[in-house]
């Protein structure tokens, strides 16, 4: 037995860990659990439910379009149905589904016990459930948005969409984006920090690379969309004219912000599926991935390129010719990394021996579909062609080829592949094969017909069409085939449900996979691994089939259970050397409560109940403070025994605790949001008609002084505390607090000088810049108050906490100076 084992057998270790990691019994357990297994399963079931809802909406669309002049729906109902179909599938199914899969699988793949911030994961789940449910309830009440899933103003502005529908979309979808950002932060920190001992970056399973890239993309692509939704909602509620031409706004600003998000979004959806393909393919071919480094490089470059493409959704908006050439070239360029992946995977099949199991079958479906979707995408990047088929059914068919072929089929393959790990059972009934042969051929018939209808000029989003256009047969064929496809998808869900409850008990690692998640028991217990594995290569189970046994016997790190708490290992980011022990939080109702108040603050404005929104926001602050307070241990514990003779510090006592990494990546998203705001300001200034505004704000010397002084104090205060943590805490806190107040005063001076944000887009933008500054100063002030309270309660202040506050203070000072500088710049120049 190893030197770490207080447990003499694998069974006693298993029992002790199972007790420590158990959720609360009964229904309450579902509300208080934060374990990735529980949260991931709930996430997966809810996302599947939204897939079914979105699918039913699709069938309504095809029923309506089956015959010309259909009286099934009128334009009012049809507009709601197609808007909701797109919205549900993109926001409520596609993104949450892969998040659920990564929550379930990532800790196992990385050789750790849970995700970095389990409670944040639980919070994200509940916000998603509340926001998604609100959107669906609104639809059932006939209050669904009807402006198309990309919501172009002015059609969606108050003047042309006076009802609640657009507000439901903006507030509901924004809350779901908040959930996606929470999950993305969690995933990034997990991949970078929470891994098996010895798992360097280059030894990570390929899926971990993909999901890391995707999460960084979420953090950089969602903020422009969140800003756009904020602008449009503020315009609708308070009449701040961001998109109204007559008052200095411009509807094109929305299109830029939307597609700055919308194009990366396509790759945010495709890349997790690609990660699954690379993971599954090598096992199905009984080999290892060809060109691992190439595939990683391709994923990274695809992510970078995807941010240069947004304008290709706007080729018909009157973009200058040179711009068109640039974006056309960039749009075709994105096919290159995709091609690298595609051929790396075919090369993998080539060097291996393929077996035709259900996951492989669906991957064949992926190839047969996605290649065509990719090629029609290249066609759309060719500007003259785009001008002709933009907004026809050709585009509809293209995007369904890419999304269903490139996302849904691989995800079905992934569900079949990981089913033994998630449910402990393998396929028993062969319903899956029948389903495949219904779905894939029917899909091709449906959308080939839709392609042709688009080429013949059928516009998307028209609720019906006239006879004699030559579209009747095509649409009827598409509709019939789409119903066959829907039956096939229903059979897939049925097959998996039946297998989950009645399948055969599978043996461990039935596919002979080589990565760590298959070393866990079957199904994976809540604690994941009985001890943290030690790995020596990229495919740990390949040369070491007994690894699973040794992990279970406690021969890895942290097989110790005497501390009676949920512990896992943090490693050095690049090398994977063990560096910290982190204590993960136990069961708690706080994430659920925080989600309730967060959702209330988002949804209350629907009913113009701004007071409720304000109370809920106060609730967010209070619950967040209780959450942090309870997590932080009162006493310094010193080094702990991690096993194998390693004495490691607790993460909470280091200079870079997970909270610091989490803050860093959250601030990345925050910074992109701020950058989008500056972009919007510059765009309106240079492009919008009806600029310049009647007058510019002229800065006063004292306001500039306040801003500079405040920012300096804010940068200085936390550094004083960090440098002399014993002696300078009180002065440092005082200096920093004064800094936040001075910065807030400078921001307030902007608002006071320009009291009518509804007058001109310039004034509205000034209020947002000032609001951004004051909001972040407020957050920093709350953090400083928290430190003061901890001191008063007699808790020791840790360097990690100081560094987190420093990070937020620096961000506040830097963006505050830039925001106020931008607000004052035109007046100072003119």
């Amino acid at each position, binding site marked *: 037995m190893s030197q770490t084992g207080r447990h003499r057998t694998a069974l006693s270790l298993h029992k002790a860990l199972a007790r420590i990691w158990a959720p609360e019994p009964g229904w309450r357990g579902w509300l208080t659990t934060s374990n990735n297994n529980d949260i991931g399963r709930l996430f997966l079931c809810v996302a599947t439910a939204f897939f079914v809802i979105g699918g039913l909406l699709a069938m309504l669309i095809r029923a309506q379009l089956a015959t010309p002049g259909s009286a099934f729906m009128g334009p009012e109902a049809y507009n709601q149905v197609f808007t909701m179909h797109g919205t549900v599938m993109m926001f409520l199914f596609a993104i949450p589904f892969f998040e659920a899969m990564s929550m379930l699988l990532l800790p196992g793949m990385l050789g750790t016990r849970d995700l970095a911030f389990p409670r944040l994961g639980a919070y994200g789940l509940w916000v998603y459930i509340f926001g998604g449910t609100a959107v669906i309830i609104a639809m059932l009440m006939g209050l669904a948005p009807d402006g198309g899933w990309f919501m172009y103003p002015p059609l969606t502005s108050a003047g042309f969409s006076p009802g609640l529908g657009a507000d439901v979309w903006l507030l509901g979808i924004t809350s779901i984006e908040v959930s996606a950002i929470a999950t993305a932060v969690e995933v990034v920190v997990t991949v970078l920090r929470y891994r098996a001992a010895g798992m360097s970056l280059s030894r990570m399973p390929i899926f971990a690379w993909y999901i890391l890239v995707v999460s960084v993309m979420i953090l950089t692509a969602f903020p422009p969309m969140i800003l756009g939704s904020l602008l449009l909602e503020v315009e609708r509620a308070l009449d701040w004219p961001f998109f109204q031409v007559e008052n200095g706004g411009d509807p094109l600003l929305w299109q830029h912000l939307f597609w700055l998000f919308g194009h990366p979004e396509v790759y945010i959806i495709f890349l997790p599926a690609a990660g699954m393909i690379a993971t599954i393919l090598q096992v199905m071919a009984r080999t290892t991935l060809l060109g691992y480094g190439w595939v990683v490089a391709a994923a990274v470059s695809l992510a970078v390129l995807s941010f240069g493409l947004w304008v290709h959704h706007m080729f*018909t908006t009157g973009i200058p010719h040179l711009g068109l050439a640039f974006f056309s070239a960039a749009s075709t360029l994105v096919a*290159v990394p995709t091609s690298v992946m595609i051929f790396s995977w075919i090369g993998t099949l*080539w060097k291996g021996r393929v077996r035709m199991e259900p996951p492989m079958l669906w991957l064949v479906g992926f190839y047969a579909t996605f290649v065509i979707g990719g090629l029609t995408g290249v066609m759309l990047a060719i500007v003259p062609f785009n001008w002709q088929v933009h907004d026809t059914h050709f585009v509809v068919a293209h995007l369904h080829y890419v999304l269903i072929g490139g996302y849904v089929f691989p995800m079905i393959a992934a569900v079949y592949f990981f089913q033994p790990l998630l449910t402990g059972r393998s396929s028993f009934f062969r319903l899956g094969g029948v389903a495949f042969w219904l779905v894939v051929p029917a899909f091709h018939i449906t959308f080939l017909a839709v392609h042709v209808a688009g080429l013949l000029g059928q516009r998307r989003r028209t609720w019906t069409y006239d006879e004699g256009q030559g579209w009747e047969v095509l649409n009827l064929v598409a509709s019939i085939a789409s119903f066959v496809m829907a039956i096939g998808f229903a059979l897939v869900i049925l097959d998996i449900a039946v297998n989950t409850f009645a399948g055969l008990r599978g043996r461990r690692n039935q596919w002979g996979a080589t990565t760590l998640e298959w070393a866990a028991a079957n199904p994976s217990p809540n604690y994941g691994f009985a001890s943290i594995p030690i790995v020596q290569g990229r495919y740990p189970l390949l040369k070491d089939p007994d690894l699973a046994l040794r992990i279970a016997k406690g021969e890895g790190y942290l097989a110790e259970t005497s501390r009676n708490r949920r512990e896992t290992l943090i490693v050095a980011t690049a090398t994977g050397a063990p560096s910290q022990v982190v204590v993960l939080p136990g069961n708690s109702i706080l994430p659920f409560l925080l989600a309730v108040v967060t959702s209330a603050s988002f949804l209350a404005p629907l009913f113009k109940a701004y007071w409720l929104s304000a109370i809920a926001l106060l609730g967010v602050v209070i619950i967040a403070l209780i959450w942090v307070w309870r997590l932080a241990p009162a006493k310094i514990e010193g080094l702990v025994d991690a096993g194998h003779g390693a004495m490691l510090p607790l993460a909470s006592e280091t200079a870079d605790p997970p909270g610091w990494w989490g803050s860093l990546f959250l601030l990345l998203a925050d910074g992109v949001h701020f950058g989008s705001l500056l972009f919007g300001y510059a765009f309106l200034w240079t492009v919008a008609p009806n600029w310049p505004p009647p007058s510019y704000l002229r800065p006063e010397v004292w306001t500039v002084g306040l801003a500079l002084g405040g920012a300096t104090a804010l940068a200085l205060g936390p550094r004083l505390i960090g440098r002399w943590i014993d002696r300078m805490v009180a002065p440092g806190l005082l200096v920093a607090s004064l800094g936040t107040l001075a910065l807030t005063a400078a921001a307030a001076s902007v608002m006071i000088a320009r009291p009518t944000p509804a007058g001109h887009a310039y004034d509205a933008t000034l209020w947002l810049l000032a609001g951004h500054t004051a909001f972040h100063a407020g957050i920093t002030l709350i953090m400083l108050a928290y430190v003061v309270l901890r001191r008063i309660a007699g808790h020791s202040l840790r360097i990690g906490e100081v560094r987190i506050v420093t990070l937020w203070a620096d961000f506040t000072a830097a963006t505050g100076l830039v925001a106020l500088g931008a607000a004052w710049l035109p007046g100072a120049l003119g």
Partner: protein
Amino acid sequence: MAQTIADIWWMMLAGAMGITALVLGLVAAAMLRRPAPEDGEGGAALWLWGLGLGFPVVTLAALTVYGLLMGERLLPRNAANLVTVEAEARQWVWSFGYADAPGLVTKDVLHIPAGRPVDVRISSRDVVHSFWVPRLAGKLDAVPGHVNVLRIEAGAPGTYAGQSAEFSGTGYREHTFTVEAHGPAAWSAFLQGAP
């Protein structure tokens, strides 16, 4: 113009079908293959450098250059006998004005001379619309606050169907118009005779 775009389409369709056949053929061959154990990692360079990187770079470069060159042909050029018309969209009507006949406005019917280049100055009074006459040119959006200029030219007199191509609410489907292309005599009669 429409002919140019059709040429691009048929060329791209042929290429796409060839590439699809190649990729799916390789997948099938790879799946059926049963390599001997001693084969090892051979062929990695071919898969990654050759097919993964080289193949798309060459084909896409060719396609992009071709697309841009063809696109040049569609661009407005200076023309001596240019005609300018105004197209203003609103929910759900098109109003057309004529530089050669100030004050003249037609609803949902655009009159142009056949065989002469026409610049359509497109704008919107309310939400985003799009001007699209499939047989004469690609589409261009009507954005509030902006004027976009589209060059069209009808080869022969006749009637051409046009429609809005950006979703604009409940009346979107019926938001259509026609283009009447006149011979020289009919064109001057229209400019003068119409009220």
